[in-house]
């Protein structure tokens, strides 16, 4: 094998490896973003439930104007794919969603999203934790 052929082989190998690493990384980040989107979508559903809970009178199992005791429905918050917990306060509600299958950007913990809903301003703040 000539020196030029060897050099070509090494260059092809290098380009191939870099492309493979790049593609793997890209697919990983797409996978993580998909998982975040799925969790945030489910949290939107739970926000709607929380609003319904808040406006329902206490005698009907609602919050009677507050969502301090709001707990998301177990079948919506706890699945094989993710787990969502919530804490309600008089002026806002906060959700923490954690994936059970996709590892996040730090390479150790699972994908995690923090979503806060402020009803006065109708604002939903999404913070990507991992």
């Amino acid at each position, binding site marked *: 094998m000539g020196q030029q052929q060897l050099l070509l082989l090494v260059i092809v190998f290098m380009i191939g490896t870099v492309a493979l690493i790049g593609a793997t990384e890209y697919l990983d980040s797409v996978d993580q973003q998909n998982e975040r989107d799925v969790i945030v979508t489910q949290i939107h559903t739970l926000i709607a439930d929380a609003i319904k809970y808040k406006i329902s009178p206490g005698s009907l199992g609602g919050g009677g104007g507050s969502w301090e005791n709001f707990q998301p429905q177990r079948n919506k918050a706890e699945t094989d794919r993710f787990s969502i917990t919530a804490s309600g306060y008089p002026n806002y509600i906060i959700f923490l969603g*954690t994936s059970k299958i996709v590892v996040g950007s730090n390479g150790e913990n699972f994908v995690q999203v923090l979503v806060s809903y402020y009803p006065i301003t109708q604002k939903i703040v999404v913070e990507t934790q991992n």
Partner: protein
Amino acid sequence: MSVRIIKIGDYERRQRKFLIALMFLVILGLGYFIYFDYQKSNITLLPASPSQFGPQIAAWKEENFIRSFDIAHATILVDEEQWTNRTRKEKLDFVVQLARYCAKKNRSQQWTLQVLGFETKRALAEIGKEGLRVD
């Protein structure tokens, strides 16, 4: 005699080619690990379940990051310098996850926690009725 010299030359050339290829592979391998290490966002987050927080809390106490942790009153004193060096994601995770931890221990449904600086007693972060705030 001359034939022998050519044979040695061939051998040396092959050896040199092999060394060059090996060096390329070593550099590529090193680059691979450095690249992956660079890609990972180097942040420390707590595990998903509050029941698994124990070892990390103990490690932070040993590092003197957590100076005191009053679970009943949901108040935590931290080293301010180490707090400042943390990213916003780490701070948010710290506040929200430890608030969940306190709520679980106190059998409460609401996550509440106040993070105070050990030196100045200044509120560095809090979650509670007033909202979620991180400095």
